């Protein structure tokens, strides 16, 4: 969306996005080394302490250090989101390749199914799936991953349709390359950048959806700290101790913003070359 010319001037969104996303990933990886306290240690002497030198972001209702919990929560939230993105990228690319390459009835059936999924609000679909399957890390990853699949499949399919018509694909067909070889060696590399862009945007979506599920009370079971559950718990103390709800929300917002900007920036950089 921002104006940029040539390779030297990177779009601002890419710079800011990779900075934010990069720092958050680094903080999550280094969490055990940086976190000043044990994230699940209860301190009855420091209930609902406001932010200060001892506890940078304050403590929650049973005296756990919020800064340490947010750092460790980043690990849980990012891991779940990454796993969900992996699910959606694999499923979505497979659907897109099959649908775009073979066309005909395969395309018809797969795309109708994708449209069916796309029609639903993602959060409702995830909620319904988790209500049927029960809440656990695995079902949350699957539900969020499946919800993110159709969007990626639709966008990637349209690029596969274009790539399929290109000369090198026709040439490969003529020399007798197998379908699998054409798909994996000739088409996939050319749609890979599109998949990467979608994956980055899906990561933001996955973090948001997982946090919404946790906030609604159908998230990962405790004691693992996740940002959504922390926010849900803090919500009841909004009057007495607003920091308990505000800081995990800020962490979610920043992470989602970071990956959204990264995705937008990548799209701006990668799409002119894809053509």
């Amino acid at each position, binding site marked *: *969306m*921002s*104006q940029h010319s040539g390779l030297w001037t990177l779009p*601002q*969104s890419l710079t800011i996005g990779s900075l934010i996303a990069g720092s958050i990933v680094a903080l999550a990886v280094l969490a055990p080394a940086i976190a000043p306290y044990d994230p699940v240690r209860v301190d009855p002497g420091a209930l609902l302490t406001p932010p200060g030198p001892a506890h940078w972001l304050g403590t929650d209702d049973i005296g756990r250090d919020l800064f340490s919990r947010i750092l460790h929560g980043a690990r849980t939230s990012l891991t779940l989101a990454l796993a969900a993105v992996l699910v959606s990228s694999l499923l979505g690319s497979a659907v897109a390749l099959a649908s775009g390459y073979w066309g005909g009835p395969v395309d018809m059936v797969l795309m*109708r199914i994708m449209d*069916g999924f796309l*029609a*639903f*609000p*993602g*959060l*409702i679909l995830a*909620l*319904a799936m*988790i*209500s*049927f*399957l*029960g809440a656990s890390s695995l079902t949350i990853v699957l539900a969020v991953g499946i919800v993110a699949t159709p969007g990626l499949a639709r966008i990637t399919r349209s690029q596969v349709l274009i790539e399929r018509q290109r000369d090198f694909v026709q040439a490969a067909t003529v020399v007798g390359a197998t379908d699998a070889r054409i798909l994996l060696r000739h088409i996939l590399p050319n749609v890979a950048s599109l998949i990467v862009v979608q994956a980055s945007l899906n990561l*933001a979506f996955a973090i*948001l959806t997982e*946090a*919404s599920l946790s*906030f*609604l*009370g*159908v998230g990962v079971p405790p004691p693992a700290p996740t940002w959504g559950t922390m*926010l849900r718990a803090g*919500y009841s103390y*909004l*009057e007495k101790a*607003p920091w308990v*709800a*505000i800081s995990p*929300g*800020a962490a*979610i*917002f920043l992470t*989602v*913003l970071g990956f*959204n*900007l990264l995705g*937008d920036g990548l799209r701006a950089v990668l799409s002119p070359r894809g053509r």
Partner: protein
Amino acid sequence: MAAYILRRLLALIPVLLLVSVTVFTIVRVSQGDPSLLLVGEEGNRELASRIREELGFNRPIPLQYLDWLGHVARGDMGRSMRLPYPVNQLIADKLLVTLELALLATLVSIAIAIPLGLYAALRSGGRGETAVTALTAVGVSLPNFWLGILLIFAFSVSLHWLPSSGFSPLQQDLLGHLKLLLMPVFTLALANAAIFTRLFHTSMAEVLWQDYIRTARAKGLGQWGVLVGHGLRNALLPLVTAIGVHFGRLLGGAVVVETIFGIPGLGRLMVEAVTGKDFTVVQAMVLYLTIVTILSSLMVDVAYAYLDPRIRYG
């Protein structure tokens, strides 16, 4: 046109059949015997077997499906497994509340998107455009549950201007009703406002490059005449589609917003049904939502034909 609409409505049938089979199968396979669910894990076994007999849960699953489908086709969604009401009554009671919330949120998001998008398009390449782009990036990334909590903290806890949660019917107290809806509507509207702004910005910027805009300017029409008479009309088309698509999806946001602000709508019903394992309610809501989304996309296509005379459906 009539034939087109009829064909689209007929196409609803296979989709609904597919959705109904999927939902029914998933519920049955994952939850097992509904009679045990009704009496509870530790419940009376004898009572369970009597329920099983009476409600026909001991018959083959495909037969049970057909039986259920027969009722659904006549509009009977069964009874709630948690509350002593028919599912349809539960849904009907909450429908208006959520509909009002969604309509108001849509209006608010359009009211934000059109001026902002127009401004960004007119300031193309300048600071104004950058500022609007940054705002929309923040808008799509703000988690609605966090925004809701921040608003409650600012306007209820700190300033005491607005009530933090609750709901009073429109007929009783119009002002109180609107005051209670102010924060929920804004919370629900923000994400869509950001999406619509981006979209309107892009389509307006494209329209401003068209020949007919240059022609309008050349014939001496003033800035507003050009924008309103020629620009808006054409740039609004993509926005119409987006509004149609996102209207059905507002229910996803309503789930969160109704939970935070304690509004007795469909979103809360959905969360309560999911956490309380009230599968008849979940089933019915999934089916109704399918119908609503398909009908709203049909309405968008029909609206398109009216707005753009070049589009004709055969």
